[in-house]
């Protein structure tokens, strides 16, 4: 217990980095993944092929491979750009982890988005067309609202995976939550308590998100407010 209290600063700092990495790459991958999913869903062949290639390659390799690849190839470039002077955002490790997690997760989100879009029945789309709605109106008022409510459970579990996946950024030396715990037990040899605490914190975050998602599922269209 004393080891935890004595090192709580380091643990909190690690947790902060984990959460920031998770949230930032979560938002980025949601945007990127939606675009990729739309590209693969579209009828524009070159766009479709590019999106499909990126998605399929990304989904067949391990995340750690992705992280170290981005780190080794991008950090020379990132080091030169050096835009952020912040202690956290400015570190090459954080930036590389952010890029890798965003790209990696976006491939999975793209597939969720695509299958959500595909799950909207053609008859629904035809009904919308028949009313004279153009492609953007169809997407905005009919296809996306239907698709999003079906996508929610899969999206939430993808974000849970993302939070868990941030632990792998420790491989490039980013001192996020897992690595901060590791540093402490390497000093104190108190593996049991520290790993139990680290596991508990991850569990609370991820289990909380999954329970939240179950609540959403109980009212399928409740999350989508339509104002037009």
């Amino acid at each position: 217990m004393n080891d935890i209290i004595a090192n709580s600063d380091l643990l909190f700092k690690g947790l902060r980095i984990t959460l920031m990495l998770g949230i930032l790459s979560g938002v980025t991958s949601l945007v990127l993944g939606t675009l990729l999913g739309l590209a693969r869903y579209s009828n524009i062949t070159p766009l479709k092929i590019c999106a499909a290639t990126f998605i399929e390659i990304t989904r067949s390799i391990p995340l750690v491979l992705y992280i170290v690849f981005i780190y080794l190839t991008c950090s020379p470039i990132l080091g030169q750009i050096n835009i952020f002077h912040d202690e956290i955002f400015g570190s090459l490790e954080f930036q590389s982890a952010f890029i890798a997690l965003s790209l990696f997760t976006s491939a999975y989100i793209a597939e969720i988005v695509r299958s959500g879009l595909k799950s909207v029945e053609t008859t629904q789309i035809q009904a919308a067309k028949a009313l004279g709605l153009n492609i953007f109106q169809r997407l905005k008022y009919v296809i996306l609202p239907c698709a999003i409510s079906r996508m929610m459970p899969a999206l939430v579990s993808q974000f849970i995976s993302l939070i868990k996946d941030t632990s792998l950024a420790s491989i490039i030396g980013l001192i996020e939550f897992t690595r901060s715990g590791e540093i402490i037990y390497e000093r104190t040899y108190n593996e049991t308590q520290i790993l139990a605490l680290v596991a508990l914190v991850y569990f609370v975050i991820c289990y909380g998100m999954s329970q939240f998602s179950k609540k959403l599922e109980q009212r399928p269209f409740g999350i989508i407010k339509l104002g037009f």
Partner: protein
Amino acid sequence: MYALDFSVLLDAKNLIWQGLLITLQVSLLSSIFAFLLAVLITYLRDLPNKWIVWITNAYIELARNIPLLIQLYIIYKVYPHFGLSFSPINCGILALSIYTAAYISEVLRSGMNSIASQQKQAALALGLNSLQTFWLITFPQAIRIVIPTLGSQFINLIKNSSLVSFIAVVDIFYVIYKGAADDFRIYEYFLLGTLIYMGLTGVVAIITNIIEKSLKVYGREAKV
């Protein structure tokens, strides 16, 4: 301009081969253990005993909501304090099996749930006991429905096996990473790594497809 030079890979071919064998060994054994454990969990969860159901649910939630890396560290670092010491590679297999079994049992359960409850009632009414009902009636129907989803769990397992490198097991990922970083031949090694993992996951995808097709020939298909 960076000039690709694949001869570095030839020089390292023994290491690469050994790493590949370790990855295959870990993946294959973990797949078998994970599947068996998941079947057991699925059976237990279907029993009318509150306590068993609670315990299995607790296991599944814990396994799914804690990063695999932390679970791996716990087995590697904490278990020895309680007199349970395994070699690093066995720690890896154990962690991967426990982690993946939780996911597989969720997949199997969704299959079980899509089987009409009348099937179970009819079987019980015929006098089959709960184990017979599970093994002969509900489980065979459930597994057919979920084979594609099951395949993607085994694919995840192969990718996750790369985490054993965190506890100093020299698997294919470790060889690729070290080679790329130490020889400064990043692109050659990563191209190889990508191809190897695509190959491994591709094989699982093909096997899944074959099993799915062959099961469709026999027996009537259950509609989801």
